[in-house]
């Protein structure tokens, strides 16, 4: 026991030393008059673009601008939401928090928790006009106002292994019919055409987004959200049937329900699959992989030609300000938002990950961008309209989870009818 107690005392000593050090670090620098602003966001970890963001915030805080930033970064998604929800429920509000907008933040906008940014955007038109056209992610038909701005952007398409395509003499598919024949050819040659990784339910969720966008377009998505188009109508049944058929034919590879997104990605990197359906966040991972040189990118094949330009894309995170009623605090928070959406930061992010897509227009340096990132940007110029997750425009906040879970049913032997019933159960419960 004595031995044990002495260990404890040692620990206490070490601990006190560490903390004494820690508190000195943080307390000394700034004067007390500064306006304090707290941020809760996911910008932890060593992904280069988030490191750049973090450093920018730290530099902003240290600069002589009368504002001190208390940042709290939680990387993992569930942990982040646990913290965000708890802080909002207990009233320990951060001034700025990160989220995706849309249905997820509808309650917050509705209850008056969020600051309407429209007056601030109108007061600084250069700032307002710098955004690409995805501000609508934080707008609601029945609640006037702009409740957030995007800091990151993504779009979804298909990465492919150029070498395999060349060996098998495959052309890049543009329409869904061409795509299915590509898949058939790959299957015949022993490849899993495109591992999906449906253990993570967002995977088929994203696939459905694209099928819907490429068959009924952006307006169709809005109509689906407001129930002008029903989830048990022919439009949705048609694309659900496609997912069902693709899985039956083996386009998504074997055991797709057992694979998560990481395993699906590994299949592509290990050349088990020839194509990989994913967002632009995959670029830097592919660039790090062994097949970096062999990868190209094409748009998700269209179902109706008129909607070839409808892409899944939008914000991959943005920031909102919580209305604390203290105008000085809100003003300071707006300053930070401007920093987070500045062209300088976007350019620095681009340099750090050698590519990527961004929610703000800026003059990038094309020489530093990786070939794959260039291919993606070139392909993206063909897009005419972007919509993010289709359930983000839904009146019912439960739809995102409901649809994704129902889609999993298609991969474990469920029929399209059962899948539609699962979805309609949630639609009707509201």
């Amino acid at each position, binding site marked *: 026991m004595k031995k044990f107690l002495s260990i404890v005392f040692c620990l206490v000593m070490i601990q006190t030393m560490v903390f004494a050090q820690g508190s000195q670090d943080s307390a000394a620098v700034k004067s007390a008059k500064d306006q304090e602003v707290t941020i809760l966001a996911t910008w932890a970890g060593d992904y280069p673009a988030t490191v750049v963001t973090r450093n920018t915030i730290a530099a902003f805080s240290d600069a002589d601008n009368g504002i001190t930033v208390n940042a709290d970064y939680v990387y993992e998604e569930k942990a982040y939401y646990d913290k965000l929800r708890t802080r909002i429920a207990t*009233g320990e*509000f951060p001034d700025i928090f990160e989220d995706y907008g849309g249905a997820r933040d509808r*309650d917050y906008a509705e*209850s008056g*928790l969020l600051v309407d940014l429209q007056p601030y955007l109108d007061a600084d038109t250069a700032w307002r006009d710098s955004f690409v056209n995805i501000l609508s992610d934080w707008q609601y038909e029945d609640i006037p106002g702009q409740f957030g701005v995007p800091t990151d952007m993504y779009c979804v398409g298909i990465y492919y292994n150029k070498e395999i395509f060349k060996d098998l003499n495959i052309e890049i598919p543009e329409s869904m019919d061409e795509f299915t024949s590509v898949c058939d050819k790959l299957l015949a040659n022993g490849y899993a055409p495109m591992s999906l990784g449906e253990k993570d*339910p967002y995977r088929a969720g994203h696939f459905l987004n694209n099928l819907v966008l490429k068959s009924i377009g952006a307006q169709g998505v809005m109509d689906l959200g407001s129930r002008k188009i029903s989830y048990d109508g022919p439009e949705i049944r048609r694309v659900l049937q496609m997912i069902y058929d693709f899985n039956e034919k083996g386009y998504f590879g074997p055991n797709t329900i057992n694979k998560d997104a990481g395993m699906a990605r590994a299949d592509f990197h290990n050349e088990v699959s020839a194509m990989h359906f994913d967002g632009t966040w995959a670029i830097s991972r592919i660039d790090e992989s062994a097949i970096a040189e062999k990868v190209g990118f094409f748009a998700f094949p269209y179902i109706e030609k008129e909607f070839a330009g409808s892409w899944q894309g939008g914000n991959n995170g943005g920031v909102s300000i919580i209305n604390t009623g203290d105008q000085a605090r809100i003003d300071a928070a707006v300053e930070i938002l401007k920093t987070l959406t500045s062209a300088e930061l976007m350019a620095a992010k681009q340099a750090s990950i050698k590519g990527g897509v961004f929610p703000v227009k800026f003059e990038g340096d094309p020489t530093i961008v990786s070939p794959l990132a260039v291919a993606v940007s070139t392909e993206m110029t063909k897009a005419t309209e972007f919509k993010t997750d289709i359930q983000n425009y839904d009146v019912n906040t*439960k739809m995102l989870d409901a649809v994704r879970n129902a889609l*999993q049913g298609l991969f*474990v032997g*469920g029929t399209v009818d059962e899948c539609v019933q699962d979805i309609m159960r949630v639609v009707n419960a509201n």
Partner: protein
Amino acid sequence: MIVGNTKQRRWDLAFIIPGLVLFVFFIIIPLCQSIFQSFYSWNGISISPMKYVGLKNYKYVFENQDFWHSLGNVAWFMAGGFIVLMPIAFLLALIINKQYRLKRFFKTTYFMPVVLPLTAVGLMWVYLLFPAVGLVPVVMEWLHLPEINFLGDPDWAIISVVLVNEWTYAGFNMLIFSAGIVAIPEELFESGKIDGASGWQQTRFITLPMMKEYFKVFSILCITGCIKHFNLVFIMTGGGPNRASEMPATMLYNEAFVYKNFGVGNAIGVFLLVAGVTLSLLTNKIFSRGDD
């Protein structure tokens, strides 16, 4: 000590109070608030008012077929706990108290699964159970057993998680039984040996009856643990596929922290509370039969 003087009584109170105060403050008061909130509708925003809705949250929960399904999954967990976990943990406790040469090695390895973070354990089993290439399916094929997609088949997902759960916590519960075995006086076994009792007979007629209290502790911890189980299901299947392995606690989490229906979440919580306390008291009664 049945009769105590006033001084002893005061000491007894003084012994209880510090722990009890801490527990009441940090656990019981929030618990009461949670019961209270189950009769209100609230979107989880501190500036939004709570609206009294009576039993509506409960009605919503009980009319939800997924909820009844999740209670069925709790039943799987409990069945696994008593049929698989309890015998294995008890056997392991016997093993580490016998004179095997590898005793020390056993003691440490058996505890390994709980030392590793649950995320790592969960992920590892996803691979071990992976169809066709995972170790378990390979061994099963070798033994000519039918092919099962453990985590992908909605009928098997919950059973697979239950079995992984028992694997993880066998070493943990071994400790509880082990504390009981070392408390059995040596003389009992000596006299048993003189009477010519075999190893099995000693276990059956000496160890098991002396361990009643520990089986009771195990039962209560197992029941309460199963009712509130969250982590392993969340990590291994996320409640899927298609909600097949959803547990009441994962539903509670989703209602409160994803959909922001805190009232519904609390109603699920209150149901679990009532069910858990009832079952535990029942267990206590069963074990107390025939006591003084």
